[in-house]
């Protein structure tokens, strides 16, 4: 706090009797040294930011021309593998959990909001009440900020973010496209013991429903639900065939970072995979192989009215921990 205040208050110009202050020239030099280092750091950060903005602009132009960037590992991605990202993330977590003085909090959070395009109006609490950046980052929103789509036949988004990929998973080796030119198996993301229905399961499910509808039309039994396997029998939709779909949503640092249920579903399995903490930004998806499989993640699996549902929350360097659950008082 004292260092910040010293920076913000104008320094008196060195005067002719600086020597008489007993500090001599060395005292004057040291007072110049600190601002010099700060200016150098700011200039370096500025240069890096300018380079980043230039790259982003170039990619944006390519995207507008409809040219999709392909998967291309590069030296920076390999260099990331050498960095102690878990330790860096842990330090970042400790730094952001430091208590900020009350008078400084609005300034810090507004700066964050300006940098990452956050909407501060939606925050549930006044800015002064978030003791640390970590607490502000995991903030709840005001009541009614996120109305849920009332259409009973729609699936809603569980998070705020940007849709990266979506589509239908077909065939036994269902693959999700990470970026053009590279895909990863969905079983690797969810884990070998996943409840994910395979094509064979789905066919058995169809035969099962058809045999029931033809042979026992008159004697329907509600008790024919078998919890021992992922086959879910629901007579109301037994006439419809089911496909498997996926959607990948990226949350940027300024987005609201709480995860909600995409539908009324029953979670059967929670699974945690410890792993790397690579960044998951757009550049990383194009340069790091199996990014979502190698990164730390939490998997929730269960069933909803239309069958199987799974949600994978993938961590990143600045998101080193994912809460699995919490006990609330009352």
């Amino acid at each position, binding site marked *: 706090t004292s260092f910040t205040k010293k920076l913000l208050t104008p320094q008196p110009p060195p005067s002719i009797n600086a020597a008489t202050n007993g500090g001599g020239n060395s005292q004057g030099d040291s007072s110049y040294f600190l601002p010099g280092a700060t200016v150098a750091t700011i200039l370096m950060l500025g240069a890096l930011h300018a380079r980043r903005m230039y790259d982003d602009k170039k990619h944006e132009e390519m995207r507008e021309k409809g040219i999709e960037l392909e998967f291309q590992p590069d030296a920076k991605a390999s260099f990331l593998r050498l960095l102690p990202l878990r330790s860096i993330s842990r330090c970042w977590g400790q730094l952001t959990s430091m208590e900020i003085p009350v008078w400084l909090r609005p300034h810090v959070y507004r700066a964050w909001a300006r940098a990452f395009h956050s909407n501060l109006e939606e925050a549930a609490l006044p800015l002064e009440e978030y003791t640390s950046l970590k607490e502000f980052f995991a903030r709840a929103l005001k009541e009614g900020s996120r109305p849920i789509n009332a259409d009973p036949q729609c699936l809603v*988004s*569980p998070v705020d973010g940007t849709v990266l990929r979506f589509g239908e998973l077909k065939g036994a080796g269902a693959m*999700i496209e990470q970026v053009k030119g590279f895909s990863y198996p969905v079983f690797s993301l969810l884990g070998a013991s996943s409840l994910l229905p395979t094509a064979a399961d789905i066919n058995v499910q169809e035969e099962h429903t058809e045999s029931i509808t033809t042979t026992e039309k008159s004697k329907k039994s509600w008790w024919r639900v078998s919890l021992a396997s992922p086959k879910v029998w629901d007579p109301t939709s037994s006439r419809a065939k089911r496909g498997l779909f996926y959607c990948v949503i990226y949350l940027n640092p300024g987005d609201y970072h709480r995860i909600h249920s*995409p539908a009324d579903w029953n979670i059967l399995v929670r699974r945690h995979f410890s792993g790397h903490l690579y960044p998951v930004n757009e550049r990383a998806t194009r340069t790091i192989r199996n990014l979502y499989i190698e990164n730390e993640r939490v998997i929730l699996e269960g069933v909803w009215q239309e069958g199987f549902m799974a949600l994978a929350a993938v961590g990143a360097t600045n998101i080193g921990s994912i809460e699995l659950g919490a006990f609330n008082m009352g």
Partner: protein
Amino acid sequence: STVVLIFQAPISKLLQEGDSSQEFNFNVKCGDRIRVGEALGRWHSS
């Protein structure tokens, strides 16, 4: 951070083997901004 959602949803019964005509339709595009509670896609009972 990133969230990957994988789910089953109805597709049309009148399928020819090998291709599918979807009943469930996404109503987003790549690059779209989306918020909690907004529809990702919907299906129509046939």
